[in-house]
Structure formats: structure tokens, C-alpha cells
């Protein structure tokens, strides 16, 4: 089934997901599948931003950048984002598989110490 990334940043939960419109938007902003497959790091900002389009369209670029910077295990994050984009087009040709247990729930918890207010 469809994959989502649940992300918690400074007490706010973000659900990162892709739909076809998100892919269309990031493509219009310069995303290219071949280039991303070859050199994912060059386009990761765009891909990460694209994952916000579906559920959190109004989040500003600076917050998205901050979230990305504080995200641990970036390799796995990129891998999951790639899978989510792949799902958008592979679902057009794939046959439904038995027990499609590909659900990935990915929790990122903010562990930075909270400064006490004076």
C-alpha cells in the first residue's frame, strides 16, 4: 500500500506523502527521475519539499529546510522518499499483490533539549 512518513518536529506532526500532483509539481520545479536515481543528493531538497505538498502545502521553505537538517538517518529517508515517488507511477502498471505489507511508518522524534523560558 501507499507509504507515508510520520515526522514530529518541535511538537508538530507532519505526514509526508506523495501523490501524482506532488510529482507533477516537483517535475515542474526541475525534478528529473533519471538524475535523481543517479545522484539523489542533488535533488533531495526538492524531493523532500515535494513530500509536504500533499498534506502540508503551506509550510514555509525555511521550516522544511530546518526539518530536513534535523532529520536523522538521511540515507533511509531518501530511500523511502524514492519508494514513495516510485509508487506514484508503478501503481499504474503493477498488479495488486497479495498482502501488500509495504506500509512504512517512519517516526522522527525531536530530541533536542528544550530551552526553558525566562
Amino acid at each position: 500500500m501507499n507509504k507515508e512518513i510520520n515526522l514530529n518536529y518541535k511538537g508538530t506532526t507532519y505526514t509526508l506523502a506523495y501523490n501524482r500532483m506532488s510529482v507533477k509539481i516537483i517535475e515542474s520545479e526541475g525534478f528529473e527521475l533519471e538524475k535523481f536515481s543517479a545522484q539523489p543528493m542533488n535533488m533531495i531538497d526538492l524531493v523532500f519539499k515535494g513530500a509536504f505538498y500533499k498534506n502540508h502545502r503551506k509550510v514555509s521553505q525555511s521550516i522544511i529546510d530546518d526539518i530536513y537538517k534535523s532529520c536523522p538517518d538521511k540515507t533511509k529517508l531518501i530511500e523511502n522518499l524514492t519508494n514513495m515517488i516510485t509508487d506514484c507511477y508503478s501503481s499504474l502498471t503493477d498488479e495488486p499483490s497479495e498482502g501488500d505489507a509495504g506500509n512504512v511508518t517512519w517516526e522522527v522524534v525531536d530530541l533536542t533539549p528544550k530551552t526553558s523560558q525566562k
Partner: protein
Amino acid sequence: MGSSGLDTKDKSKVESTSLTKLFEHECPYYMSYGMSFDEYWYGDPYLVKFYREAYKLKMRYDDVFMWKQGMYIYEALCDVSPILHAFSKKGAKPLQYRTRPMSEESNENKTEKEKELEIKNEQLKAQIFFERWARATKKRFNN
């Protein structure tokens, strides 16, 4: 002279895959399956699989429906055939068209009396067939 292998390699083009183009190309097909524009573009990417499966089922149902319709037409033509041709005998009457739909004539919907009558009819048919066969065989041996 002549071109080197490298030159021909340089001329070849690798077309990039545009996902937007692919999505836009496929969109009308899925809309014809009954999927809405919003579901296709903004919904879960996997929805398309179920629309595809549902469409296959619908095609199968439609096929069965058309087959059944053909059966009804065929039966109706057979029933009316005694008076449908130019050389039909005077006073010929069409056979009676079925009184109930096919689905209602399945064994489950029949009363006990109707079931008994059907069994008797089948037995009678078998008896007639056997008697005819016995007569024909006897005739052959006598000759």
C-alpha cells in the same frame, strides 16, 4: 575515412522519462474507469489498482449480461419461428415465450411440485428415448 564508432554513439539520444507526461497520458483512461480527476491526481497513488480491478470485473459482468441477453433473443426467435417463415402452415401459432426470467427458473426457486414434475418429465423422456432405440435395434436385427 568513414565514421568511427564513437561518432555514432554521440548521435544517439537518451530521452528522459517525464512522469508528468505519463500521468497526463494515463489520466483519461482512469477517468473512463470511473475515477475522478481529484482521486487520480490528489488521492492515494494505489487507488488506480482497485479501479483497474473493478473495471475488469465490470467488463466480466457486462460480458455475462450480453451473453444472457443474446440467449433471451435467441429463445424468443426460436419461439416465434413457427410463424416467422413464409411457408408456415395456416393457423400455426408461436410457442409461448418463457413466463419467468432464467434466474428464477433455477432449481432453488422451484416449488416441490415443480421439481417433481421436472423429474417425471425427465424420466418420461428417457423412457421414450430408450423405447425408440430398442425398436430401431430390433428392426435392424429383423432385417
